[in-house]
């Protein structure tokens, strides 16, 4: 079975699966380029400089945040954003930790994210499988467009009935937020999964059927493992979507004790608007997990997208 685990379509062949080897992190899809000899050695300076200038728009704010977070409260408000912290202190991190009750908020965010990621992968993979393999049936075709239509309905428009509904069902808590995250990203995920699913040959399944496997078994033992590259992509988007979401938890969760990390950051933009150092320490702590996760997983995203969304 493991030999069949890389369904490379002709279009995706440019994305070598060798990108999974350690050491080429993040450069996977580009590696065939290096074989083209002369051009590969030369550095394209104009392009590099343009990119460098553009990336400054990200690096400067990031450095300012780190710089600010390391300052003392007194130095943070002196109006000189570029001055180096003197003395260097970590007190703002400990203060932010206590103010936001960081461990609890982190646990809430982690819970919502974990449920969303697992739910989004399993449910949209199931739906995509059913739809793609029954594409010639009208009901399934229609249900696909019905699901896609959901992509065009923004959360805010249904937010009011949503708030009421979750209240009635006693889901005005992190679990309810996770369920809503799952639903609102299903359209995009099913689109990704079903595009990928079409590249898996039906013959694979037929041979398994002949061996007496049921549909359920076929899905879990054959199809789901084959979907792994796309599941990784979907999982990463699911992670980012729910980890960073502000609106849904802030509207749905009624108990402030159960609030997620991003929502808690808002307190620094109102109440404590003067303690920049604490605010920035808190921002950095809130963004760190997402950046770390993304750094380790980004190489799967491009290969997944290449085979799914933008074919």
């Amino acid at each position, binding site marked *: 079975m493991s030999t069949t685990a890389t369904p490379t379509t002709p279009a995706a062949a440019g994305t070598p699966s060798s990108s999974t080897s350690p050491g080429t992190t993040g450069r996977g899809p580009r590696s065939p380029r290096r074989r083209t000899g002369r051009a590969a050695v030369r550095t394209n300076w104009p392009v590099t400089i*343009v990119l460098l200038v553009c990336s400054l728009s990200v690096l400067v704010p990031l450095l300012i945040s780190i710089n600010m977070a390391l300052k003392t409260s007194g130095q943070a408000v002196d109006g000189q954003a570029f001055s180096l912290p003197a003395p260097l202190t970590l007190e703002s991190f400990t203060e932010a930790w206590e103010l936001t009750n960081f461990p609890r908020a982190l646990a809430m965010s982690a819970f919502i994210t974990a449920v969303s990621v697992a739910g989004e992968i399993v449910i949209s993979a199931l739906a995509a499988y059913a739809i793609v393999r029954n594409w010639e*049936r009208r*009901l399934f075709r229609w249900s696909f467009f019905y699901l896609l239509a959901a*992509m*065009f309905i*923004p959360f805010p428009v249904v937010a009011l009935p949503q708030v009421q509904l979750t209240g009635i069902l006693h889901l005005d808590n992190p679990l309810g937020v996770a369920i809503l995250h799952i639903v609102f990203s299903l359209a995009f995920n099913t689109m990704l999964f079903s595009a990928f699913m079409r590249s898996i040959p039906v013959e694979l399944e037929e041979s398994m059927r002949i061996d007496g496997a049921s549909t359920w078994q076929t899905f879990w033992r054959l199809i789901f493992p084959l979907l792994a590259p796309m599941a990784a992509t979907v999982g990463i988007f699911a992670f980012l979507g729910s980890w*960073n979401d502000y609106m849904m938890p802030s509207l749905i969760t009624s108990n402030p004790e159960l609030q997620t990390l991003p929502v808690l950051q808002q307190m620094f933009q109102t109440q404590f608007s003067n303690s920049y150092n604490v605010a920035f320490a808190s921002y950095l702590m*809130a963004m760190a997990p997402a950046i770390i996760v993304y750094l380790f997983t980004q190489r799967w995203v491009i290969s997944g997208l290449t085979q799914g969304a933008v074919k």
Partner: protein
Amino acid sequence: MTTSTSVAPTSTPGLPRPATRDPWWRRLLGKQPLGLGMSLPYIVFLALVMAYPLGYAVYISFFDYVFTAPGVHADHPFVGLANYRAVLSDPRVLDSFGNIAVFLVINVPLTVILSMVLASALNSLTRWTAAFRVAFYVPYVTASVSLIGVWMLMFSDDGLVNSLLGPLAPDPSWLVNSHLAMPSIALFVTWKQLGFYVLLYLAALQNVPRELYESAQVDGAGAVQRFRHITVPGVRSATLLVLVLAIITGSNLFTEPYLLTSGGGPDGASASPVLLIYQKGIQQGNPDLASAIGVILVILVGLLSLASTRLTKED
């Protein structure tokens, strides 16, 4: 739902029909009825969490509606289009749609152009690509709330941007200037989302055959010509996706005006329709008016997405 009632035994031309007709339930459900079971959680889910609230939102937009505590009864008289009339004659609502138009006019072209150019620049580089990519992704993978804090500091009255600009700094400053608030938000959103769209384009570029560039180069096409005649048409499907996604997310702008300009300030100059839905529906207790805005918004977004689909298909 609607689908099950409207299955008529008409055969669609061009589709292979089985020679012997199966029983109706088999035609409806396919050879594997389990398939329906697999997509059922999704469909029920969507029905409960999307279709029902959407229908409900449309419903209350035609009534004089108030939310009550559970068990308390209140009259909800039917008022026809009165909510729509009220909303459409409210200058604040009209302004918010105007604001979002300003936003989209800045955000969407800038997003498409910048992400396409940056992605192909990244794609043509051989060194330091990983570092550059990470740099562009950082804003995207970070929560808006945190980034907004950074921008508030940078664009404040005595912030970094103004001290760099010196005498050129706008007065009043960016986020409290009624002309510059919305463009500032548009820039912020473009900057924040760029990483995602660069990613989409990078993925699309992997499917553009490299031989095309090489033969174009042999034929003497310059870098700009290669970009125009190979890259741009080569990633058209990605452009369509980027356009639609940018329009949808842009029209649903909420977090940025809510936090960056503290509730659509100054004086509603950066209010978005969704922000008004929030303010009217949840803060002021007028769900009927809020729903009317929502319905108008959904229709406009649908039309815009449709138009952009047409546009990219034709050229």
